[in-house]
C-alpha cells in the first residue's frame, strides 16, 4: 500500500507512504483519492463531475498532479539501503544488572525479575566486559548506549557505579560517547542515588501506571501492599531534582484499564510531563488485550489525542511519546527499516554475561546468541534478525505503517507466532491507530502554526 488516507477529528489526512509526505485535503479530494490512480482522470470526472461540477474535479486533479510531479504522492518505492547488507556493528546493550525485583508486577515478562532462572546480580567484571564488548564491536560508530535494566537495577548500584566509572574511562581513551539510561520502578531512589544519577547524566525511565488503583492492582510490593504512593513521591523528587528533563514516566495498560487516557492524564496532573503508556503483552491471562478490546482502545487513543492537542494549544502541554512524530527531520530509511536492531546491533546481557537479542528474549534459551566474553557465536541467528526488517516481511511490505513501525517487535512476533518473520497482529492494529492519531496531532499543530 503506497498511500494511506483516513479521517479523524474532522480532518481528512493523506500519507504518501514512500516519501513520508502528509497532506490535509478537503472532502472532495479525499473521496477522489478512493479511485484516482494517477492516470484515470476520465473515470474520476465521470464519477464526481456530476455532483461536484467538472471544474472543481479538474482543480483537484491538477493539484494531485502537482503532488505526483513533486514525488509527494504515489512516489516510487524505496530501495533497501546498502548499509543493511553490511556487517552489523554493535551500538547498544541492555545490562540486566539485577535479575531480582522488589515489586511483584503481575504482567512482568521477567517473571518478577528472575526471567525464569535464578535471582542473581551481575558482577562488576561482567558489566565491565560488556562495555568493552560494545567498544570492540562498534567500529567507527561514535555513539553507543548502555541501559541499566533488571529486574530492578537499583538493587545492584555497586555494579551500576562501577560500570559508569568504567564507561567514562573508556570514553576518554577511545573517543566514544555513551548515552546511559536506567529503567526503574523508582522505589529505591534516595537522595544519594538521585544526586548520583543526575551528576552522571543518566536518563531515567520510571514506571508508573497512572491512577492509584490501576497501578496498585498490577504493581504490588512483595507483601501485597500497593506501591503507588511511594513511587509517586520518589519519582517527583528525582524529576524535580533534574528540572523536569531527561526522563520518561511510563506505564502499561491492560484489559483492566481500557480507559487508559485517564491514567495518562492522572500522570500529567501529578506534574509529570514526559509520558508514555504501552499495551501489555500477555497470552491466556485475565489482563491480556484481545481483539474485542480494540474498539474501546481505538476510541481511547482518539480521546487522548484530542486532549493532548487541547492542552498543548492552551499552553498546558504534556508530551505523549507516541504523538511526538517528527514529520520533518525523522530518521533515515535505513533506521526506519532496522528499528530496534535487536539481535544484530542491540543485545541484552544477563547477569552471567550471556547475550540475547533483547531484554524480552532473555530466558528463551534457543535465542541465546553467545556471551560477552566469546562474542556472538550464533552468527546465522544474528543475520536472521538483521534480515527481518519491514521490507522483508510479507505483512509489512504491504502495510502503510512500515516506515514508522519498522516491522514491529520481534519478541512479540516470536511469542505469538513462533517466528520473528510474522508480526503480532494485535500489536500492528494498535500501532497503526497510534500512528493515525500522531499524524492527526502533527497535522493539526502544523496547520495551527500556519495560521499564526
Amino acid at each position: 500500500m503506497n498511500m494511506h488516507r483516513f479521517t479523524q477529528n474532522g480532518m481528512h489526512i493523506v500519507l504518501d507512504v514512500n516519501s513520508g509526505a502528509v497532506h490535509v485535503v478537503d472532502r472532495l479530494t479525499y473521496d477522489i483519492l478512493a479511485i484516482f490512480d494517477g492516470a484515470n482522470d476520465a473515470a474520476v470526472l465521470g464519477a464526481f463531475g456530476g455532483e461536484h461540477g467538472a471544474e472543481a474535479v479538474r482543480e483537484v486533479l491538477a493539484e494531485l498532479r502537482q503532488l505526483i510531479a513533486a514525488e509527494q504522492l504515489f512516489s516510487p518505492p524505496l530501495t533497501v539501503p546498502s548499509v543493511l547488507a553490511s556487517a552489523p556493528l554493535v551500538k547498544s546493550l541492555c545490562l540486566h544488572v539485577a535479575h531480582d525485583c522488589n515489586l511483584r508486577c503481575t504482567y512482568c515478562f521477567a517473571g518478577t525479575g528472575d526471567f525464569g532462572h535464578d535471582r542473581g546480580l551481575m558482577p562488576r567484571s561482567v558489566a565491565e566486559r560488556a562495555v568493552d564488548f560494545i567498544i570492540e564491536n562498534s567500529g567507527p560508530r561514535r555513539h553507543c548506549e548502555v541501559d541499566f535494566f533488571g529486574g530492578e537495577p537499583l538493587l545492584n548500584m555497586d555494579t551500576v557505579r562501577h560500570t559508569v566509572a568504567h564507561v567514562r574511562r573508556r570514553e576518554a581513551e577511545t573517543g566514544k560517547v555513551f548515552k546511559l539510561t536506567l529503567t526503574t520502578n523508582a522505589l529505591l531512589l534516595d537522595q544519594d542515588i538521585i544526586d548520583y544519577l543526575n551528576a552522571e547524566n543518566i536518563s531515567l525511565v520510571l514506571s508508573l501506571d497512572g491512577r492509584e488503583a490501576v497501578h496498585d492492582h498490577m504493581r504490588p510490593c512483595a507483601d501485597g501492599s500497593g506501591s503507588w504512593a511511594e513511587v509517586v513521591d520518589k519519582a517527583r523528587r528525582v524529576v524535580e531534582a533534574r528540572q523536569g528533563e531527561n526522563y520518561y514516566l511510563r506505564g502499561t495498560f491492560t484489559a483492566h484499564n481500557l480507559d487508559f487516557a485517564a491514567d495518562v492524564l492522572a500522570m500529567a496532573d501529578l506534574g509529570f510531563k514526559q509520558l508514555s503508556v504501552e499495551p501489555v503483552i500477555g497470552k491466556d491471562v485475565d489482563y491480556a488485550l484481545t481483539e474485542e478490546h480494540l474498539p474501546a482502545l481505538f476510541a481511547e487513543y482518539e480521546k487522548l489525542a484530542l486532549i493532548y492537542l487541547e492542552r498543548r494549544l492552551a499552553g498546558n502541554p504534556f508530551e505523549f511519546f507516541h504523538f511526538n512524530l517528527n514529520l520533518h527531520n525523522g530518521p533515515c530509511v535505513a533506521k526506519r527499516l532496522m528499528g530496534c536492531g535487536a539481535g544484530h546491533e542491540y543485545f541484552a546481557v544477563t547477569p552471567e554475561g550471556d547475550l540475547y537479542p533483547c531484554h524480552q528474549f532473555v530466558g528463551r534459551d534457543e535465542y541465546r546468541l553467545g556471551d560477552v566474553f566469546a562474542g556472538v557465536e550464533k552468527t546465522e541467528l544474528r543475520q536472521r534478525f538483521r534480515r527481518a526488517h519491514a521490507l522483508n516481511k510479507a505483512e509489512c511490505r504491504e502495510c502503510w505503517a512500515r516506515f514508522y513501525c519498522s516491522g514491529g517487535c520481534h519478541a512479540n512476533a516470536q511469542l505469538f507466532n513462533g517466528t520473528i518473520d510474522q508480526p503480532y497482529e494485535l500489536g500492528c492494529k494498535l500501532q497503526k491507530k497510534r500512528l493515525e492519531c500522531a499524524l492527526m496531532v502533527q497535522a493539526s499543530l502544523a496547520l495551527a502554526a500556519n495560521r499564526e
Partner: protein
Amino acid sequence: MAKHIVTVNKASLQKTVQTGGCGECQASCQSACKTSCTVGNQVCQK
C-alpha cells in the same frame, strides 16, 4: 496556494536512502517496559 490540499511537511524519505545509515542515532524499542521508541518519533542526529 492550493485550494483543496495543504501539504504539512516537506519529507523525502527517498533522499535518505543514500545519505542515511550512519547509525549514530539512539536505539529504539517498541516494548512496553522500555517506552517504545517507535522509530518515526526520532530525530535524525545528522
